């Protein structure tokens, strides 16, 4: 994340904006210093407790004491960077970009913009209607709506923090792939007549809004606001997730999960996807558990498929979408996205040994 590019675009660099940039750089440096001292801190904490360090309880405590600050710090950094980048995007701009786009290229664009466009979850229905009624093709709209929750900053930040940047990148690529292909398939099926009638008949013209010009300071503030809001909301989930992960790490014998979730069991990926559909948790609660499962021999593709299924296909979302989609269209949506996730899991298990 480079601060320089952002400041270069500022209309004018007022003295207060220089102060903000210096303060941000100072905060980032401090972040780096604290982060580099975390392993030493967790070792010191684990040793100062009256527990045998090599006992099961000791292993669980060390895992918890190291992971909690590490995850929260990395998450804050990723969320801040995303908040800053997203201040350059808005649903209105995205809609203007996507309106009238052909399928194919439109799906690719929509997947990418789904990651970058900020919108709160209660905006999902207005956004859907706003897109479709302004001439964004149905399949392209779906690509956007699938990418947005699946490849979110919390999922990416946590995977990066806990499982490593390679897996985070693979998740990003496969998540985008599922969103693009699923949206394209839904578009090819020409299911516009399965929208609710009132949505299909609605034609609107985009509101003529003054484009907001944000200063560098306002973008930094947007990043801080994102950290405050998102990390403030998900931290109990993360701590709960890490506690479960710590338990698995310390007490579940290695190899126990290999038979059920390992690469050998062909049925494990479909089972993981099916299990994930009715489950609803945000990425924050799932990923620390995912990390511990991988450590105990679960296959990565199976675990990623489970995670995507939990995050991208959720019951509350279906209930909200029911207002604009018919049951049949929702069923197609679940079927297409579920198959995509299934393919990703099987492919991943086959490719990475």
């Amino acid at each position, binding site marked *: 994340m480079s601060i320089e590019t952002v400041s270069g675009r500022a209309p004018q660099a007022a003295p207060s904006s220089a102060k903000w940039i210096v303060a941000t750089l100072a905060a980032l440096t401090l972040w780096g210093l604290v982060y580099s001292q975390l392993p030493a801190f967790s070792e010191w904490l684990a040793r100062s407790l009256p527990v045998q360090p090599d006992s099961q309880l000791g292993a669980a405590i060390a895992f918890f004491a190291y992971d909690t600050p590490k995850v929260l710090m990395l998450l804050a950094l990723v969320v801040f960077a995303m908040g800053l980048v997203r201040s350059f995007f*808005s*649903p*209105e701009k*995205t*809609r203007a970009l996507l309106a009238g786009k052909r399928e194919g290229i439109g799906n690719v664009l929509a997947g990418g913009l789904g990651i970058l466009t*900020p*919108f*709160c979850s*209660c*905006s999902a*229905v*207005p*956004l859907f*209607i*706003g*897109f479709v*009624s*302004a001439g964004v093709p149905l399949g392209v709209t779906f690509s956007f709506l699938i990418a947005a929750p699946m490849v979110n900053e919390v999922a990416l930040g946590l995977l990066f923090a806990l499982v490593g940047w390679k897996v985070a990148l693979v998740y990003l690529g496969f998540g985008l792939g599922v969103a693009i292909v699923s949206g394209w398939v839904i578009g090819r099926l020409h299911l516009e007549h399965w929208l609710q009638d*009132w949505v299909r008949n*609605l034609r*609107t*013209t*985009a*509101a*003529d*809004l*003054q484009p907001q010009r944000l200063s560098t300071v306002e973008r930094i503030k947007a990043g801080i606001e994102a950290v405050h809001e998102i990390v403030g909301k998900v931290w109990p989930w993360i701590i709960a997730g890490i506690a479960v992960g710590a338990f698995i790490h310390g007490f579940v014998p290695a190899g126990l999960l290999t038979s059920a979730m390992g690469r050998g069991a062909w049925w494990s990926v479909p089972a993981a996807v099916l299990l994930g559909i009715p489950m609803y948790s945000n990425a924050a609660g799932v990923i620390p558990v995912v990390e511990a499962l991988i450590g105990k021999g679960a296959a990565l593709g199976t675990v990623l498929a489970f995670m995507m299924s939990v995050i991208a296909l959720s019951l509350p979302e279906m209930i909200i979408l029911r*207002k*604009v989609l018919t049951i049949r269209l929702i069923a197609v949506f679940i079927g297409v996205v579920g198959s995509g996730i299934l393919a990703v899991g099987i492919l991943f298990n086959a490719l990475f040994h």
Partner: protein
Amino acid sequence: MKDVKVLGPGCKRCLTTAAMVQSEADKLGVPVKIEKVTDYAAIAGYGIAATPGIVIDGKVVHAGGLPKPEDLAQWLAA
């Protein structure tokens, strides 16, 4: 009397936005009538893609996220 409509399905941000409009109007001494529009079709009819949206005297001035207080003051004073 300014006619202000807050567009949004009734989530927390929409309620906060309505409260912000009221408090800013009180501060400026501008009389306002605030109406919450929660019907999805009606919201879409204003041509916005993100909520909360703000409509003042029939004109859409804001869509998506909480408005800035200084912007609110400007819209209400206009």
